[in-house]
């Protein structure tokens, strides 16, 4: 079991799921019959990346609360790493979304609820990054960052539900209660890609946490040698 969740195993599992999801999405799932046409194929990675970004911010939120409760820097590291990965995935969502928007609606950008709230999420977590870089003392930095991560997370559910509460925008609602709005083959391809992206997030989180641990070890050793 331990081997299955090691970083190399998670990378391999993620890779397999992502390749299978993509192959199924292209060769098994039909071309979308709506106006989206072939450009709908972007969806098989675009939507899972978006969901994964929101999951990463959720992890950062929980880890931030855990840090404030316990004061353990391990939680701060997890929150920091999750924000970093959430931002990475968010940038991918924005880029692929713009390409899809141009293909489907002939516009790179529209100030509509989903896109605007997602952009706001990106700016908020970019500000988290800036905040961390301007505070030197470790405990203070971790505390401020944790408070900020909790506040920034308020925009995440707003982004998720934006298309449901304000459906007049361009962005479609893909999955609603009781109806996925997708054919069976499309849904299977999407779910496999979703699993792949989640595993990729887990693998990258493990590796980035290892990096943070190594950075701490280097700092400790430097202070030992220096002292």
């Amino acid at each position, binding site marked *: 079991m331990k081997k299955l969740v090691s970083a190399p195993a998670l*990378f391999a599992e993620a890779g397999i799921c992502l390749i299978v999801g*993509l192959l199924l999405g292209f060769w098994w799932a039909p*071309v979308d019959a709506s106006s989206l*046409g*072939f*450009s709908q*194929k*972007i969806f098989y*990675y*675009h939507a899972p*990346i978006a969901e994964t970004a929101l999951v990463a911010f959720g992890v950062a939120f929980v880890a931030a609360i855990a840090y404030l409760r316990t004061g353990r820097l391990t939680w701060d590291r997890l929150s920091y790493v999750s924000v970093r990965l959430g931002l*990475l995935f968010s*940038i*991918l969502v924005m*880029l*692929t979304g713009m*390409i*899809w928007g*141009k*293909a*489907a609606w002939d516009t790179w950008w529209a100030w509509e609820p989903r896109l605007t709230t997602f952009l706001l999420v990106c700016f908020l977590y970019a500000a988290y990054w800036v905040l961390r870089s301007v505070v030197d003392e470790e405990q203070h930095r971790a505390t401020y960052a944790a408070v900020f991560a909790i506040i920034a997370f308020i925009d995440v559910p707003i982004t998720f539900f934006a298309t449901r509460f304000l459906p007049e925008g361009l962005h479609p609602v893909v999955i609603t209660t009781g109806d996925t709005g997708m054919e069976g083959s499309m849904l299977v391809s999407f779910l496999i890609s979703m699993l792949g992206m989640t595993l*990729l997030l887990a693998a*990258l989180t493990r*590796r*980035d946490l*290892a*990096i943070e641990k*190594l*950075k701490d*070890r*280097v700092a400790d*050793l*430097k202070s*030992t*040698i220096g002292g």
Partner: protein
Amino acid sequence: MSIEEGVKFVASAYAIILAVLMIYYFMSARRVRALQRDVQLLEDEAKRRQGPAGGAGAE
């Protein structure tokens, strides 16, 4: 939109995803290796410094 036009957009989107994820993957792998090397060097240095002092203390 024709399928030929759609293919261009779809290929661009997947190329960006692949490129960004691969760059991040290899950069983080490189960072791990560099940090492991630093830790090893610093541990060796720490041992080297402790060695004579420890020996002197024992005498």
